[in-house]
């Protein structure tokens, strides 16, 4: 905040002195767009606060640099090696990427299907390899049974997953659970329809 004010005051002084340009005192700044994990490239629009104008970055390793004086950003392309050199410290500190899973249950119970019993091991491994994990478990049901029954069952399924984590040493306070009953089916059905794909928990790990 102080920094901004100092810059503005500097500009004001420059204006009073009749100088054409405000020689701004901000440090140089660079923005580089890179491909994501899947190789896709997004978009970042770099708008210059002082001079107006903007640069759209939408190609791999497209960069915009605003010099400390002058201020107009010129698009350029940088190399992957340059990015690794300048941003190595930040790259090394990137958290493990969040990941989500679905596990499925036997009808009317909080027992995993045989496949999901095996898949639980992958989920557990993802949680265990994080130094500080946060896990959100949301339980769901199909439409067999009353709304009330399914609210309780969905929560029971989520609690089952939590118990399986805490039983293997994951701290309780890193796991949140919720039950959504039959309200959010993956496969919409009529009431009282047995649908294995809706009998599930969603587990988000970050």
């Amino acid at each position, binding site marked *: 905040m102080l920094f901004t004010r100092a810059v503005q005051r500097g500009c004001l002084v420059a204006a009073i002195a009749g100088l054409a340009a405000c020689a701004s005192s901000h440090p140089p*700044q660079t923005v*580089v767009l890179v491909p994501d994990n899947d190789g896709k490239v997004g978009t970042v629009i770099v708008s210059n*606060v002082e001079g107006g104008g903007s640069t759209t970055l939408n190609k791999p390793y497209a960069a915009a640099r605003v010099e400390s004086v002058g201020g107009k950003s010129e698009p350029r392309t940088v190399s992957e090696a340059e990015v690794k050199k300048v941003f190595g*410290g*930040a790259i090394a*500190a*990137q958290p493990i990427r969040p990941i989500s899973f679905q596990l499925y249950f036997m009808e009317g119970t909080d027992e995993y299907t045989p496949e999901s019993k095996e898949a639980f091991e992958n989920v557990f491994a993802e949680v265990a390899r994080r130094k500080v994990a946060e896990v959100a478990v949301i339980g769901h049901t199909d439409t067999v049974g009353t709304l009330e029954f399914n609210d309780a069952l969905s929560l029971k399924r989520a609690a089952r997953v939590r118990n399986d984590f805490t039983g293997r040493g994951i701290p309780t306070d890193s796991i949140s659970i919720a039950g959504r009953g039959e309200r959010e089916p993956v496969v919409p059905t009529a009431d009282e329809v047995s649908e294995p794909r809706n009998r599930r928990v969603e587990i988000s790990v970050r």
Partner: protein
Amino acid sequence: MVAKYVRNVVFGLGVVGAAMAVSGPAAANDIAQIKVATGTVIVERGSQRLMAAAGTRLQQSDVIRTGINGSVGITFTDNTMMSAGPNSAIVLDRYAFNSTTHEGRLDTSVRTGTLSVVSGKIAKQSPEAMTVKTPATILGVRGTEFFVQVGEVK
């Protein structure tokens, strides 16, 4: 601890007046968590200066600073990830996230240093909802991975 204090003063992070560990269970106003921390990492929260570590939970308006050997990686509740290299100062200006609709708002600032960003659900849901400010620019983030540097590498 004493060594860290001295380093903070030497590298211009200011005197740590009341350093205390922050961790514990999630609270409603937690917006992100530190997942990775190396070297000196300080969180400024109002008038408090907190020694941060992996597990520290963050709130809106927190300022995160790294020392000369420091780096920090955080994950927001919408899965946005940010990590900063040495000599960095990052401000978590504004955060709101509805975990059901994925609507929200995420505004951060880089005062100095290097930042890596992988955008999350907020930017995916609404393309106008995420910005990163630097002293001379505002970045409109449509996704997904990018880097920001303010100042030269020391």
